[in-house]
């Protein structure tokens, strides 16, 4: 009787010690879930979700404080991936946060630009080059299309231009059977 108790207690202590050691030894820094969510988000840092960037939104989602349908640049596709990752139900994009738009990049009308550097400060990814009283220009391949530079511009010289397809980025269309549109019947 006593020996059995001792054996069980000894085992418990041993296993407890092993687990404690493992917890210290293999400690994971940071929250891996946040990084996983952050990897799905489009990194525009646009703030349309109501959080100051993609990482804060990811953190909020990981803590269950935010819904998964608040990211317009990620679109429906992004929501699906988030739903898969977090085991939640798919929801259509929340219209309050904005609508899904085709990928665009900003364009500065260099004739109008006064060189105030306000857009430079607003750009979260350093995609605008320029200096005070010097003309600014967008480095198009780096632009994420977050539109954060539009509002601060005092002379409204920045516009969004959709990215055009090229032979290299062209995508084969989904080969679904095409329904032919039939002209709507008139009242007569």
């Amino acid at each position, binding site marked *: 009787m006593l020996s059995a108790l001792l054996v069980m207690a000894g085992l418990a202590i041993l296993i407890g010690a092993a687990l404690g050691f493992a917890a210290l030894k293999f400690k994971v820094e940071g929250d891996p879930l946040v990084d996983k969510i952050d990897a799905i988000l489009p990194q525009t840092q646009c703030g349309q979700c109501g959080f100051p960037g993609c990482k804060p939104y990811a953190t909020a989602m990981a803590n269950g404080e935010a819904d998964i349908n608040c990211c317009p640049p990620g679109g429906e596709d992004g929501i699906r991936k988030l739903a898969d990752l977090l085991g939640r139900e798919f929801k259509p994009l929340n219209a309050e946060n904005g609508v899904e738009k085709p990928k665009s990049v900003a364009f500065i009308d260099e*004739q*109008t630009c006064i060189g105030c550097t306000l857009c430079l400060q607003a750009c979260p*990814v350093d995609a605008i080059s320029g200096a005070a009283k010097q003309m600014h220009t967008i480095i198009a391949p*780096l632009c994420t299309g977050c539109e954060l530079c539009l509002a601060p511009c*005092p*002379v409204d010289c920045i516009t969004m231009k959709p990215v055009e397809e090229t*032979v290299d980025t*062209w*995508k*084969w269309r989904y080969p679904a059977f095409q329904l032919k549109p039939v002209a709507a019947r008139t009242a007569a």
Partner: protein
Amino acid sequence: MNALRKLFTFNGGVKPATNKAESSRDPIVRLDQLPLPPQFVVPLHQSVGGIPQPLVTAGERVLKGQRIGGSDGNFSSAIHAPTSGTVIAVEPRVMAHTSGLTMLSVVIEPDGKDEWVEIQPLDWRSMDANAVRDWLRDAGVVGLGGAVFPSHMKLMAGRKTPMKTLVINGAECEPFITCDDLLMRERADKIIAGIRIMRELLGAPEVLIGIEDNKPEAIATMTAACTANADATIQTIAVPTRYPAGGAKQLIRVLTGIEVPHGQRSTDYGVQCFNVGTAYAIHEAIDLGHPLISRMVTIAGNVGQPRNYEVLFGTPMDFIVRQAGWKDDTNAFIMGGPMMGFRMPAFDVPVIKATNCIIAASPRLFAPPPPEMPCIRCGECARACPTDLQPFEMYWHSRAKNFGKVQEYNLFDCIECGCCSYVCPSHIPLVDYYRFSKTEIWARERQKNAADEARVRFEQRNERAEREKREKAEKLAARTAAARAASAAPAATTADSPTAPEAPAPTPAGDDGKKALIEAAIARAKAKKAEAAGTEGEAPVVEKPVRKVLSEEEKKALIDAALERAKTKKQAAAEKPVTEE
């Protein structure tokens, strides 16, 4: 010798009607037998790799063979003028691509003189192999079997394995296409000359020329050319006719028995494969100094006389099809064969380096496909697949847009040969689904990479902002410490050195200390203002606080003025076109 050689087989494959007899009856129409088209449109991007940069501008006169597009880095290939004439424009034109999108092209109006640029053959035997490769890159030589991969990149032996076998692909398995067949019949010696150069560059002891056994004339001429060269290491081998025996991996399997595994290259196994047309182009580029400006093209399908033509790149497709006899019910062109070809967006798209065949399609020749029926999972496609994939699984997941799963089924090993679509009893356009999945996966990868780069830049930017803030705070702390020391010095009348700034910055000093600090700051600002008013400015660091002291109204006035200026500029720009109209 051939009879003794053991051949291997690949799984799957199909045997469609070859339709090769019509176009292989007559010899190739040579360049000098053809009139020049009224205009050449030469796209700058005709091969795999970087987009060549235009080297000419509108209005410039170019000579035949002059380089008009310089290769963009080593993984790219140059582009040359097909004839002498004037460059009318360098602008985007519709490309020979299913999408119907445009590509920067050089438009040349020929002057009819067909005047060559100064050309000279390359003495390749006395040259370094890398110099020969650079020469081929600048001569624009790419794989002419259809993949248009820059040849100089392929003419390198693998790092680990020494080269054993050079496979020359003359199988030409796709229906309708006979350009390689005719090239082998008529220019066998030149192909052999090209093969010798390639063998030397690769250091391959053995060369196997694989030709499907439905081309007896080509086999005979190539064998004769091999014996005439008295070179026992180059052998012509007839392979059984079965589509796609001309796929690089399939032909390597049949000739050498080596099956190149997923994710590896044939050079890892000491084998490299080239098309016969590429061998011919290499001979032309090195022994004659002619850059790649033309190729053999089979014109077949709904035309009066199907035949092979030597066509200059940039020739409009309809121009060359008209030479073979235009038929009015032609409704589209297909570039490539009926199994792997692409429908062209227009009739006047230019012939490019990848154009091995133009099939004029008509509703009679290619009836619209029957409606797609549900997959019954019969497994015919898996039996026909030459790369041993499971097409029905890939179809299922592609249809559901489940791209991760499609990749698990090795979508990227699919060579898009079309055998699965050919045998499908439900008439499902399977290859279209795979192409859709492939381009979609590539697009997502691009997006993912862009997002990762954006994240890195965002983090770096935040770090920089933080660092700047910290540095500013430190500087301020140092300055306040110095000022306090300076103000404390006269008060306490200690003659000790006050210049050394103390480390502790904003210590909770008493009210007197704070007041003294503020006074000192105001005094400093005043002094600076007076200095700035008197003499010219100082160091830029000192200038900033002076600006801040400038009255708010002045600042506002400045901004307003700038705004006004911009507005008037904008208005002027907006009004201009209206007044012009």
